């Protein structure tokens, strides 16, 4: 099985290791992520202005380009797969909106017409976690595990965009289980905690760092208090905030211990036997933990 995969900007810049591990894992699971030949920015965060049409061109262009890509792929379905939870949310919301509002879809298609593109409204946007849960299945993942992640105590951090708004959620927004079940499938321990969707502070990291630091302090201390030794996420911005601000808090003497942040695909890669060497994206070094557990 192959999927038309839309990377977005972050996976090519700040989260290269997320993409690399996801693509490698997808090959092993026969749910391969094949990158779209050309793609543009999703628009980052769906616009909620009173007239949204202009802001919808970018996401709908992606959907129409993916439809072209799906035609080229063998053994695929009508799905656009994302890894970034922000892209996932934006594309899902817009996809639902243009499906409901034919007039808006037509207006946007008139803009795409001269580029020989047209969106039919028949694609589905899915986050790779949904593919793993609904199309690959956790039992299949269990079968492919070569190295159980014994000793890893994982807190699953969803952030906002995987669970909100309703049009974009990939799981129950109050009691999600997809990342926890995945954690169990990989042989790691699940840490139950209340901060799974406490906001990371998002873009405030560029201008109001204090807001982000307060959030990160709450989230990471909360995870450690409940015995976690790792946090997993699916969002490059959450990962950046959780990771970089811990180092900042440590330098300021506010926290002593840090906790490594992983993309869920990194843990999958380790469990499925892919040799990982590059941890360049990380701010908190995850190697001491992985070495102590004999995982790298």
């Amino acid at each position: 099985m192959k999927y038309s995969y839309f990377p977005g900007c972050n996976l090519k810049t700040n989260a290269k290791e997320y993409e690399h591990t996801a693509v490698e894992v997808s090959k092993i699971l026969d749910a391969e992520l094949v990158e779209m030949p050309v793609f543009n920015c999703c628009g980052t965060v769906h616009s909620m202005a009173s007239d949204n049409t202009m802001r919808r061109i970018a996401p709908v262009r992606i959907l129409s380009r993916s439809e072209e890509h799906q035609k080229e792929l063998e053994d695929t379905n009508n799905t656009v797969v994302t890894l970034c939870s922000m892209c996932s949310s934006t594309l899902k919301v817009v996809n639902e909106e243009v499906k409901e509002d034919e007039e808006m879809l037509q207006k946007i298609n008139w803009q795409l017409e001269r580029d020989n593109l047209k969106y039919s409204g028949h694609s589905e946007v899915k986050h790779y976690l949904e593919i793993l849960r609904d199309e690959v299945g956790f039992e299949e993942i269990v079968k492919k595990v070569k190295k159980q992640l014994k000793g890893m105590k994982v807190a699953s951090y969803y952030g906002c965009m995987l669970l909100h708004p309703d049009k974009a959620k990939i799981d129950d927004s109050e009691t999600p289980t997809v990342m926890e079940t995945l954690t169990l499938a990989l042989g790691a321990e699940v840490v139950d905690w209340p901060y799974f969707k406490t906001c990371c502070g998002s873009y405030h990291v560029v201008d109001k760092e204090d807001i982000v630091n307060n959030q990160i302090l709450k989230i990471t201390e909360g995870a450690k208090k409940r015995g976690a030794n790792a946090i997993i996420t699916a969002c490059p911005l959450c990962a950046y905030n959780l990771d970089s601000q811990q180092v900042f808090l440590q330098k300021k003497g506010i926290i002593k211990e840090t906790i490594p942040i992983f993309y869920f695909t990194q843990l999958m890669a380790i469990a499925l036997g892919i040799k990982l060497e590059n941890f360049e994206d990380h701010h908190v070094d995850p190697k001491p933990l992985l070495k102590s557990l004999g995982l790298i």
Partner: protein
Amino acid sequence: MAKAISMREKKEKLDTVTIYIMGQGYKVPSSLTIMKAMEYAGFKLKRGVGCRAGFCGACATVYRKLGDYKIYANLACQTKVEDGMYLTQLPFVPANKAEYNLDEIKPSASTMLRFYPEIARCLSCNACSRVCPQDIQVMDYVQYSLQGQIEKAAELAFDCIQCGLCAIRCPAEIPQYHVATLARRLHGKYHMIAPDTLEQRVKEIEEGKYEKGFEELMSLSEEELKKRYVARDFIDQKKA
């Protein structure tokens, strides 16, 4: 006799078209380019004209055709006039050009964003690509720049002649063609291998191999220089 005149009239009708330059109508021969037609109509072009061969990008022209809602744009020196063309010239496009030292920057998305933060405002409307007389996928190279895929951005933008039409059409006010220059410079410096011959020549210059020759030339009279210019050797490509 009367018949002959009407034939000539008919022929004249076939061979001329009416174009509107900045709102004023002119009858011009249909075989001319926009640039030549403007000169035929009496305009003396000082700006908005350059190589007259489609390379320099100085003669951007924007036009509409009678009864057609679309905005067209092209190079005046490369486009033939059509009947009912309403056109205007864009000899210069105001766009900010960033200053940077290539030795101090890296080929990455953050470099592109540092010097041209506007690229983050791209709406992916693709108006830039549609207006490009070189048929460059302008929006895609802006997006590649955002994604840090500098090599792809540079390659996609290779044919740019900096006419600036993209920057004028952009709702996000991005100076695309300057973004492309930065991408190409970064790609050239950090990804491409400098040819041996170039490095050797630079070394020779630094070692002063050509100093003597230049000194000799500088000391010559104008007449002697002209004589030498006429008698200069060409490299025989077959032998070289």
